[in-house]
C-alpha cells in the first residue's frame, strides 16, 4: 500500500527535474495560502456574538455572526418580513417540481416540465408580487438578495433554452428570411456586452417607449437577460446541430416525418446530448452574470451583501472579506451543483448510445 503510493508519487509528481520543480512550487504556494485561510475562516474566526464589538480585536478572523444576523436580508432583500412566507411557498413549490424533474426514474416528465416552465412561474409571480385582489402587493423595488438572483437566473434559463433552440434552428433553416433574421438577432446580442444591454433596458428603453407604458425595471432587465442569453444558447445548440450527420435528417424525412418531428424526435435529442456541457456552461455563466443587475439599481444577492456591509452596526475590518467569502461560497454551491448534475446526465445518456 505504502510502496504503491510512493511509486505513484514518483511517477506522477517527481518523474524528472522539471516536474519535481513544479511540484515543489505548487506545494509552496499551497502552504503559504491554505493554512492562513483556514486559520482566518475557521480557527481564529468569530462564531458567536452580537454586533461589531464581538468581531473587533487583534488577531480575529472572519466575522460569521455578521452573516447569520443578516441572512434574511441576503435571501429576501427588503421584502416585508411578515410576507416572506409567500416567497418560501413559491420556492418550495418550485423545488417540488424541480426535484422529480432532475431524477430520471420519476415518470411523467412531460407534465412535470409543463408544470415547471408554465404553471409554476405563474403561481410564483402571483405569490411573490402579490398582484391579485386579496393579496398584499409587494413592489419589485423591495425585492432583493438571493430572491432576485434566482428570479433573474431562472427566467434567463427557462426563456433562453427554447428561444436558443428556435434561433439555432432558424439559423440553419432553408428559408432565407428566417435564416437572416435569426443570424442578425444572434449576432446583435452576442456583439453587445451584458452591461450595455442592462443599461439600455433600464435607462434608454423608457426614453423610446410611449409614456403611458410603464415597464418595471426588474421586468426590463429580465427581458434583456433572456434575449442576451438566448443568443449564446443558440450558438451552443447550433454546434450540436452541426454534429448530427445529414443522413439522420434524410432518413427521418424519407420515413415521412415532418420538419418539426424530424427536429424534435431525431435531430435535437442527438444535438443536445453533444452539447450538454456547453449548455450547462452557459447556464453557469448566466447565473454568475446575474450579479450585473447591480449596476441598474437592482439588489441581487451580491448587491444585498454589499448593502449589509455598509451597516454601521456591523462595520469591522474583516466584515467585507467575510461577506464576499460567503457570497462566493453561495455562488459556488449553485454552480458546482449544476456542473455535477450535468456530468451525471452526460454519463447516463452516454451509457445507452454507443456510436
Amino acid at each position, binding site marked *: 500500500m505504502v510502496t504503491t503510493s510512493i511509486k505513484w508519487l514518483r511517477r506522477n509528481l517527481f518523474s524528472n527535474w522539471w516536474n519535481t520543480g513544479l511540484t515543489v512550487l505548487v506545494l509552496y504556494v499551497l502552504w503559504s495560502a491554505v493554512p492562513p485561510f483556514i486559520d482566518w475562516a475557521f480557527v481564529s474566526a468569530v462564531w458567536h456574538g452580537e454586533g461589531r464589538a464581538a468581531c473587533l480585536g487583534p488577531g480575529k478572523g472572519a466575522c460569521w455572526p455578521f452573516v447569520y444576523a443578516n441572512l434574511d436580508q441576503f435571501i429576501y432583500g427588503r421584502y416585508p418580513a411578515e410576507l416572506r412566507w409567500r416567497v418560501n411557498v413559491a420556492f418550495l413549490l418550485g423545488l417540488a417540481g424541480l426535484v422529480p424533474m432532475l431524477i430520471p426514474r420519476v415518470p411523467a416528465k412531460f407534465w412535470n416540465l409543463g408544470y415547471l416552465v408554465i404553471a409554476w412561474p405563474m403561481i410564483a409571480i402571483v405569490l411573490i408580487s402579490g398582484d391579485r385582489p386579496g393579496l398584499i402587493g409587494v413592489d419589485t423595488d423591495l425585492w432583493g438578495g438571493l430572491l432576485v438572483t434566482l428570479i433573474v437566473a431562472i427566467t434567463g434559463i427557462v426563456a433562453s433554452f427554447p428561444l436558443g433552440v428556435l434561433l439555432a434552428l432558424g439559423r440553419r433553416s432553408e428559408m432565407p428570411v428566417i435564416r437572416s433574421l435569426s443570424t442578425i438577432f444572434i449576432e446583435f446580442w452576442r456583439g453587445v456586452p451584458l452591461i450595455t444591454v442592462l443599461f439600455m433596458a433600464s435607462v434608454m428603453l423608457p426614453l423610446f417607449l410611449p409614456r403611458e407604458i410603464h415597464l418595471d425595471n426588474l421586468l426590463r432587465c429580465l427581458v434583456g437577460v433572456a434575449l442576451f442569453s438566448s443568443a449564446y444558447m443558440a450558438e451552443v445548440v447550433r454546434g450540436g446541430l452541426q454534429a448530427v450527420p445529414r443522413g439522420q435528417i434524410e*432518413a427521418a424525412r*424519407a*420515413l415521412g*416525418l415532418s420538419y418539426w*418531428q424530424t427536429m424534435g424526435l*431525431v435531430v435535437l435529442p442527438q444535438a443536445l446530448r453533444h452539447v450538454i456541457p456547453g449548455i450547462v456552461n452557459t447556464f453557469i455563466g448566466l447565473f454568475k452574470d446575474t450579479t450585473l443587475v447591480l449596476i441598474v439599481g437592482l439588489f441581487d444577492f451580491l448587491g444585498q451583501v454589499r448593502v449589509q456591509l455598509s451597516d454601521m452596526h456591523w462595520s469591522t475590518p474583516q466584515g467585507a472579506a467575510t461577506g464576499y467569502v460567503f457570497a462566493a461560497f453561495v455562488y459556488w454551491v449553485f454552480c458546482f451543483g449544476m456542473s455535477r448534475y450535468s456530468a451525471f446526465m452526460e454519463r447516463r445518456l452516454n451509457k445507452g448510445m454507443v456510436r
Partner: protein
Amino acid sequence: MTKSPIIEIAHVDKWYGDFHALKDVSLSVAEGERIVIAGPSGSGKSTLIRCINRLEAHDKGRIAVDGIELTEDLKRIDEVRREVGMVFQQFNLFPHMTVLENCTLAPIWVRKQPQEEAEATAMRFLERVRIPEQALKYPGQLSGGQQQRVAIARALCMNPKIMLFDEPTSALDPEMIKEVLDVMVGLANDGMTMICVTHEMGFAREVADRVVFMDQGEIVEEAPPAEFFTSPKSERTKAFLAQILRG
C-alpha cells in the same frame, strides 16, 4: 405483363448550381417491377432515386409516384414519402433509439398507430430480416450487416409500396453483404416494387426485371439483365461492365 406504372419519371433535369446532374431522364416502373440502376460513381444514380421521394427536388420534367405528382406541395411530398421506403448506404439508423424504437418511430408519429400495434408490426419485420433478438439493443451495438437489415425493417414498418435502395451493401464488409442481399431477394420474391442502385451484378442477374445503366447524368441503356450482360449496346456500358466484372 402490362401493369400500370407506379413510378413515372418523364424528361427530368436537375442542376446543382451550374452542374447538370440529371439530363432529360425518363423512366417508368410498373408495380411489382424490380429495377437495378448501375453506373460509374458520380453518374447521378443517387440523385435520380432521391428525386423519387423528393430528398432532392427536380428542376424540369415530371415525376409521379402512385399517381401523385411531386411538386412544391408539401402535403403531396408527405403522401409520397409514406408510400416509398428508402435504405441508405450509411444505414442512417437513429443512434439514440433502440432498434425497436427506430422501427416504431414513423408508424407511431406518421401513421398514428397505437404503440402496441407498431411494436407488433416491428417485431414481425425484425423477424423477417432475422434479427428479432436485437430489438432492444442500440444501433451502435450491432454489426454493419445487422444495422442495414434493421434499416430495411424500419422502412418496411411503414408498409411502403415501393422500396428504394441506394448502394445498400457498399459500406459493408464482404462477409456481411450476403445477409443483406438475401433479405432483399426475399423482398423481391414477395413482389415488392424495388429500385436498387447497386454494383452487385449477381443480385441484378438474379432478381432484376430491368437493368438501367447511367453515365454522366443520362440513362444510357436499359435492358433485361440477360440482354444487358450478354449484349450491351453502347460502348460506355461495355466499358463499365468490363471494369466491374473484372474487379
